[in-house]
């Protein structure tokens, strides 16, 4: 597989001594959707800024299509990449169409091509009807789509999206995910960040879990789940987990197979029905349980087992 973006031992320490990235190494392959999954403050945006030449790493090196970060902004490779930052980059007082036009002229796209390109993108992102509206008057979802459409003006090979669904309502979010999937079908390499598990699971060919500046695991969503918690997990909700309860649990399940999150336990084990049987047979333990379910594991569980933390605050 060809490498689109290669990140080698990147560490970033900000001026205020915050270590936002700690020896990060991974590759993004051509044509895949790679999702960086991690909680707020994990270092996702920092990494993207380094890839797009906005920030200098404290140490390490980044290569985009084989060009090192030092040469990136001076080489034509920069024209084959686009990114949409967390905050929409739009000119608020220009219409949707004008925003696209201006971005297109910044890429010096010939006028005739510009018109057709704008038309395509307007259709693609369902902005055709809104094309004469001022960008500042658009809804959050439409602004986001406009941002992405603008980033696609130059028909980049690589698209980097920082939290593309942040702040969108469920409908807009679904439509955004559909758009991103379409982009993949066009053969684009997409690197996106998210702190939302469902998104990573649905979109990503591969997921990189990042926490506190470190890459914890990189794999396909299925493998990641399989390796960290198996295909299914057991989720048990207690009124309260007292020391006695905890002891009783440990007598049934090894501690390594338990992730504790407040009054909730996630349990991974090869033979879950057998575990359930054992729990049932312990009357005292069973009586303290509010809810018990066996379900398919998700990346949230994987994250929990890998980091011992919740991805999103509950």
């Amino acid at each position, binding site marked *: 597989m060809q490498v689109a973006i290669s990140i080698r031992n990147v560490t970033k320490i900000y001026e205020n001594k915050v270590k936002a990235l700690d020896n990060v190494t991974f590759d993004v392959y051509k044509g895949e959707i790679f999702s960086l999954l991690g909680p707020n403050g994990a270092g996702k945006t920092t990494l993207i800024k380094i890839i797009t030449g906005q920030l200098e790493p404290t140490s390490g090196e980044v290569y985009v299509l084989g060009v090192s970060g030092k040469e990136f902004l*001076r080489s034509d490779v920069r024209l084959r990449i686009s990114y949409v930052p967390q*905050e929409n980059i739009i000119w608020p007082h220009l219409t949707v169409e004008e925003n696209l036009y201006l971005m297109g002229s910044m890429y010096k796209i010939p006028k005739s091509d510009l018109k057709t390109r704008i038309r395509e993108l307007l259709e693609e992102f369902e902005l055709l009807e809104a094309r004469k509206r001022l960008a500042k008057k658009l809804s959050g979802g439409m602004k986001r789509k406009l941002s992405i459409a603008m980033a696609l003006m130059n028909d980049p090979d690589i698209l980097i999206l920082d939290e593309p669904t942040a702040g969108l309502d469920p409908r807009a979010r679904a439509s955004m995910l559909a758009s991103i999937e379409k982009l993949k079908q066009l053969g684009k390499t997409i690197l996106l960040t998210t702190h939302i598990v469902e998104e990573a699971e649905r979109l990503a060919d591969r997921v990189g879990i990042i926490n506190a500046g470190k890459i914890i695991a990189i794999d396909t969503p299925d493998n990641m789940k399989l390796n960290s918690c198996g295909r299914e997990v057991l989720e048990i909700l207690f009124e309260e987990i007292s020391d006695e309860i905890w002891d009783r649990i440990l007598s049934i399940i090894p501690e390594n197979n338990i992730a504790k999150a407040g009054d909730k336990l996630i349990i991974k084990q090869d033979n879950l029905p057998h575990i359930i049987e054992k729990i049932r047979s312990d009357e005292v333990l069973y009586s303290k349980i509010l809810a018990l379910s066996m379900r398919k594991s998700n990346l949230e569980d994987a994250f929990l087992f890998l980091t011992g933390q919740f991805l999103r605050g509950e």
Partner: protein
Amino acid sequence: MAILSIIIHKFKGAIRSKELYIYIIGFPLIFMIIYGSLAGSFYSKVEPIKIGFLNTDTSVEYTIGDATYRVNYGERFCTFLKSMKYEDTNVNVFNIINVSSREEAENKAGKLEVAAVLETPRGFSGNITNSLKSITYLTLAGILNEKAQEAYESGNYELAIRYWEALAEVSEFTNLTYSIKIILIGDPTYSKAMQVYELSWKYLVSFVFNEAQSFAILYADYLSEKYNITVSISNETVASNVERAFQVEFERIGGKEGLKESFMRMYYAVLVPGQIIQSIMIAAISVIYMVQREIESGLMERIKLTKISSAEYIGGILLSWGIVALFQAILMLAAAIILGYVQVVGTILHYILAITILVMAGILTASFSLIMTSFVRGEAAGSIVMVILLTVSLMIAGYFPIPNPVIGKLFGREFTIMDIAPWRSAITGLRKSLMLANIYSPVEVLPDFLLLTMWTILYVVLSFVVFSLRILRKRY
């Protein structure tokens, strides 16, 4: 062309943002209200105004007791004017040359060799004398009457009678008629002529006050001695009686319109250009907010991934603000023309110059803003630049008389301290090319134009260097 697209879109963006209209309309309106309410006399420069003086008056004689005085108040007024200084300075207000005839006066004023010629007409001295006597009567009658009453009530009848006799004597000054008139020969569309007109009023009143004071004191002394009484007068009593019939007649040469209109026009000739440039200066502060927003939103970083060069981007911003300035100036000028403050009197060349000046003023301010944004980040930038530009614009717009010493001369144009503020040349250039186009030829606008061009180029170059180094500079 990419830069063209940037210019067009930035311009569109700018004129669609509501902030701009606050700057374009809100601020100038506030200033127009504030400064419009101030008298037009504030716009003078602190330097002697060259005027002619034509005295066609004849001397008069008057006697007080045994003494006979022979005076020519025309001459005295001339001497008085020569001694006038600008407040708090050692600078004479007028530089007076004597003019011997009406023809000479019209000739000199017509060629603008002098700002105007002041004429004290025949009968001036007689009228002044009558006014002095009148004022003296009004001043002394009250005092003498009061003193007589006082003496009478305290039983000193003999003293009371002497006061009454003095009162009877001063009463010969009652019912004197007078009309004090001076004639101003000049072109009312010439700002300095209008300034002389205003100053003439002011100085004529203080001249009469001065003379009245001396006359009243002289007369009071005479009465005191003659009737063996004490009469003392204060300045205030004289002052309260001075405000009587005064008249400054403006005898205009050239032009057609009436005095009042031309005065208003003159007034706005000075104020409108200052105000247009001021509002352009203030509106261009939006550049800061716009650029700050673009920096914060990451657009500046984003642009680095495109094909656009920093020169093209900065150039686009600056030129678009030149166009915004033009747009703004057209709005303001249209308002001024509709209100009748501006009359279209110049040649095409005048207007081309004026338009170029306006565009340059916009570019100049935008460059200044870009330079400032490069150094001050965040919210503070806007406020800091606002304070700087507001202060500078207030100083140079010509609302107040601020000492403005000459520091040099180039192409026949005098350079003053204020020319250090780059916008000053835009104001003076605009004043000449737009408002005073009937007086100044386009060639005479050139020194201001060149100075502005020089400043603009300097600032643009600086903004390119500073902004691309500090903001658009590549991070690697």
